[in-house]
């Protein structure tokens, strides 16, 4: 299953709307962590051309996205000719609400499904083992 969201810009503010879940393509990560681990956020194509909107987008994506208590964090950006999509991963954090604090162990993490943001990169793309790797699309677009 593919869980997709759309980011819309209305009067200078961002609004996120969710799409209906559809059968989508599989990937190595969704086979490893489950399809609910990944959320795709489609960005407006004209947003990156405006500096002020780009700054807002940076501050939005660097913050965690909480959806029904589950915490998603931005980790990859895919840029095509027609669309720009940001991929968010579910972490082992859990938002309890109210005080704004994130708990480090979510109920799903008790089953050993999700990991933290740093553990994910340490496992799949350890920067200590390859610190000379080519910069990815994320840095080419100066998004972060």
């Amino acid at each position, binding site marked *: *299953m593919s*869980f997709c969201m759309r980011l819309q810009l209305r009067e200078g503010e961002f609004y*996120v*709307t*969710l*799409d*209906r*879940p*559809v*059968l989508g393509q599989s990937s190595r990560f969704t086979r490893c962590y489950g399809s*609910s681990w990944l959320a795709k956020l489609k960005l407006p194509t004209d947003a990156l051309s405006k500096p002020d909107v780009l700054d807002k987008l940076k501050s939005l994506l660097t913050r965690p996205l909480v*959806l*029904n*208590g*589950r915490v998603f964090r931005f980790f990859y950006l895919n840029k095509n000719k027609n669309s720009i999509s940001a991929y968010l991963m579910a972490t082992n954090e859990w938002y309890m609400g109210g005080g704004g604090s994130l708990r480090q162990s979510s*109920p799903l993490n008790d089953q050993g499904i999700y990991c933290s943001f740093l553990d994910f990169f340490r496992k799949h793309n350890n920067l200590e083992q390859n610190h000379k790797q080519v910069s990815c699309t994320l840095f080419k677009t100066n998004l972060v």
Partner: protein
Amino acid sequence: MDARGLPWGVQWEIARLISLKHCEWDDISMSALDVLRTEGLSPPDPDDPDTPTSTPAVLNAQIGPYIEDLLRWNKHTFGSQRRTKEVLSTVRSRFPRPVIHTNICPACPSHLGKNSTRRILPSSGMALQAAWVPHLNSGTFTAARCPFACGCS
């Protein structure tokens, strides 16, 4: 939602309705979540309906298409509505999809030109194979035992 065992697909559908302003968080009452939980439990095993499953789980496909009816219009239409093509394309079917098995009858001199392709379930196709392969190996295969009903005689 997690305490009621609602899967992520159901939680996503609820969040989707709220993001589209189709309903508010106030509409998501505990009683509505209880209805989603009780209606979405997995059905008994069709192969063994007498044995109840030990831990029935809530299935996305069972309640996903009807969440909007319940939350927006308070309609209790679980399982009584005909699913649209859009809904069918977004949920997984719990029944096995029929596949095409090509039955090539060994008694017929050639299967070319014959309509020997039938759409059957995989379990039936495997049963057919299990029926004729021992006879074929033992050399006792006759047209009278032809399981394909291809018309050879």
